[in-house]
């Protein structure tokens, strides 16, 4: 589109900030003069390289996104009930939230777990818990997502064994386990081991899954938590893709063929409130991934270049004040994810700035997706925003910003080294502080928080986690310990430790220990004896 550049018209403007949440300036008007490059190459068609317009040709005409609400609290019984409730209300995939002790590799009876069991997710200590968690749910007929990272290999082993008990072999299990350890060191901060052994475990999982679980996504490369930690959309895009490339490099170093594992890598992005910047972020992510996979990492199969992602609306955008307004925020964010071409979606519940969501709030959140999918008509054509001068220009600019970050990270010696030097952590802390300043100075408005406030709000009913659940879980765990073959546990843990000290793939010894009903905490402790632990030096 080589139209002559022309003067932008002068507009009467309100006072205020006309920029994206990343601080990127927005022009008063976009037109043909903003188009860059050859549209066939840059934008293409949905389902075709470089996938800017979406991973599939028919997009939501072919199939709506998977409505996948994240759930987990208390013990496995409560969460199993919530799973059945969601499936009964038309949800099409499961997504498991684990509690903090499970995420950090502590058993529920560990001193560090006191007061935390079942609070922010479900407690899973052993195969016994996993069996109960999925009771009555045929694993051959659903796809399951599990949000766990440092101990991901152990939870995957539990899941494989539950499948086996149901008569579903690993090759028939479909789903995703997060496993993205780099973003833990960057943002979410739930770790068990130093970076290098943690990266080895991730690579072990990629390798094992590429041989045994063709329908499984062993890593979900996640920007969500980077964004929740306060990053900009540009940083979320750049750090997440760079993490992804780092896993690809590790798998290639292991000797895997890129086209054997890359099709099973998937992504997880935030859906924040800045509508068009979010849409541009997803489009830029697809284009960058496609190009780098083909040109830098030598992928030949289109599946290896086709970025697919899950999105979750921004928890951090929810307010404790006037919480019903969060339904509106979540709708806008969900719509951005849909117009950006997401493959699955979690919509947050309006009460989540206060506590874990109630059943009513979860239902409204799910209904929000159903209204977008079935009432609004936005699904009738693939990528309805493709070709918008503004959206295409913003997509180009997001891409440019990401490449700027890639160059800075490469200068530091790659992502692992950049994390050691606190580079992404510092960038996020800076962005998050700058945003808070903008709120303080009311450069940016959050309705109900720094403007349009009102006193005397009616209290919102919230979900309380019964403290007795912690005792119940500890009793379950003690029953597991009492009922198992202690010699088999000892033997499999010793074998896990031995293998950890070699370069062998750790999935087989982890599955063996899980089968013997070794607990998560015991397996983590065995590996920590070889690998050590991790402490960060925080920057603020």
């Amino acid at each position, binding site marked *: 589109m080589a139209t002559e550049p022309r003067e932008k018209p002068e507009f009467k403007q309100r006072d205020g900030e006309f920029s994206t949440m990343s601080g990127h300036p927005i022009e008063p008007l976009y037109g043909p003069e903003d188009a860059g490059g050859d549209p066939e190459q840059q934008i293409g068609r949905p389902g075709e390289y470089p996938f800017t317009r979406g991973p599939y040709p028919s997009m939501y005409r072919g199939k709506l996104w998977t409505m996948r609400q994240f759930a987990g609290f208390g013990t496995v019984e409560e969460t199993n009930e919530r799973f059945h409730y969601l499936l009964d209300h038309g949800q099409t995939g499961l997504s498991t939230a684990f509690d*903090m002790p499970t995420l950090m590799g502590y058993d529920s009876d560990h001193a560090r777990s006191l007061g*935390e069991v079942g609070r922010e997710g479900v407690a899973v200590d052993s195969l016994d818990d996993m069996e109960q968690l999925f009771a009555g749910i045929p694993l051959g007929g659903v796809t399951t997502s599990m949000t766990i990272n440092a101990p991901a290999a152990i939870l995957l082993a539990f899941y494989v064994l539950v499948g086996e008990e149901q008569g579903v072999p690993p090759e028939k299990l479909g789903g995703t386990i997060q496993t993205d350890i780099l973003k833990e060191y960057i943002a979410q901060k739930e770790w068990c081991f130093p970076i290098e052994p943690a990266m080895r475990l991730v690579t072990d999982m990629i390798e094992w899954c590429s041989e045994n679980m063709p329908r499984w996504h062993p890593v979900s490369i996640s920007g969500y938590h980077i964004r929740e930690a*306060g990053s900009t959309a540009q940083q979320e895009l750049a750090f997440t893709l760079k993490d992804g490339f780092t896993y690809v490099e590790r798998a290639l170093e292991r000797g895997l063929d890129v086209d054997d594992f890359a099709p099973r890598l998937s992504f997880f992005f935030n859906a924040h409130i800045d509508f068009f910047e979010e849409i541009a972020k997803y489009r830029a992510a697809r284009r960058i991934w496609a190009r780098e996979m083909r040109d830098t990492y030598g992928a030949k199969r289109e599946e290896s270049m086709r970025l697919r992602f899950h999105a979750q609306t921004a928890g951090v955008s929810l307010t404790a004040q006037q919480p019903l307004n969060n339904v509106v925020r979540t709708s806008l964010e969900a719509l951005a994810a849909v117009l950006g071409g997401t493959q699955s979606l979690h919509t947050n519940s309006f009460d989540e700035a206060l506590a874990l969501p109630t059943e009513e709030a979860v239902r409204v959140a799910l209904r929000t997706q159903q209204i977008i999918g079935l009432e609004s008509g936005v699904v009738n054509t693939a990528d309805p925003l493709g070709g918008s001068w503004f959206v295409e220009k913003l997509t180009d600019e997001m891409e440019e910003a990401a490449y700027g970050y890639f160059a800075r990270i490469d200068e530091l010696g790659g992502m692992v080294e950049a994390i050691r030097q606190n580079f992404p952590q510092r960038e996020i802390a800076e962005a998050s*502080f700058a945003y808070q300043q903008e709120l303080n100075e009311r450069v940016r408005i959050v309705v109900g928080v720094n403007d349009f406030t009102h006193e005397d709000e009616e209290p919102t009913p919230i979900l309380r986690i019964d403290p007795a659940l912690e005792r119940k879980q500890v009793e379950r765990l003690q029953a597991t310990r009492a009922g198992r073959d202690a010699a088999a546990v000892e033997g499999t843990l010793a074998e896990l430790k031995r293998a950890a000290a070699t370069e062998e793939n750790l999935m087989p010894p982890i599955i063996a220990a899980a089968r013997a009903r070794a607990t998560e905490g015991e397996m983590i402790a065995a590996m920590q004896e070889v690998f050590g632990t991790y402490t960060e030096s925080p920057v603020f």
Partner: protein
Amino acid sequence: MEAATARKIRVVVAKPGLDGHDRGAKIIARALRDAGMEVIYTGLHQTPEQIAETVIQEDADAVGLSILSGAHMTLVPRIVELLSEQGVDDVLVTVGGTIPAEDIPELKKLGVAAVFTPGAGTDEIVDFIRSGAAERHQLSE
């Protein structure tokens, strides 16, 4: 006692428990530092014992506990108890995070001076710590 009042206000910002949500803690730490206070940020995943020890060793005027895991009714009482066992009863204890309104009176009964929930402005928090700590300085004179 000139020295006591001239000394900078010392604040420990702490993350008790296992949750890794440190966006708020870091923003507060930075805002307090920018306001001229001496800020000691403990980092993540601290036990109540570690936090009490840091408060005592650093001779802090105030401690801000940031908790978004729902474990506040276990962790906060333990920290307050440890401080008082060590005879430390003049440190200003504040809590921030996703704390349901109905838990706030109980936390205050334990001796927590203020609870800041999502949406609280940094200016409000800085002012609260400054005036609370100034009171402590005067008491120690």
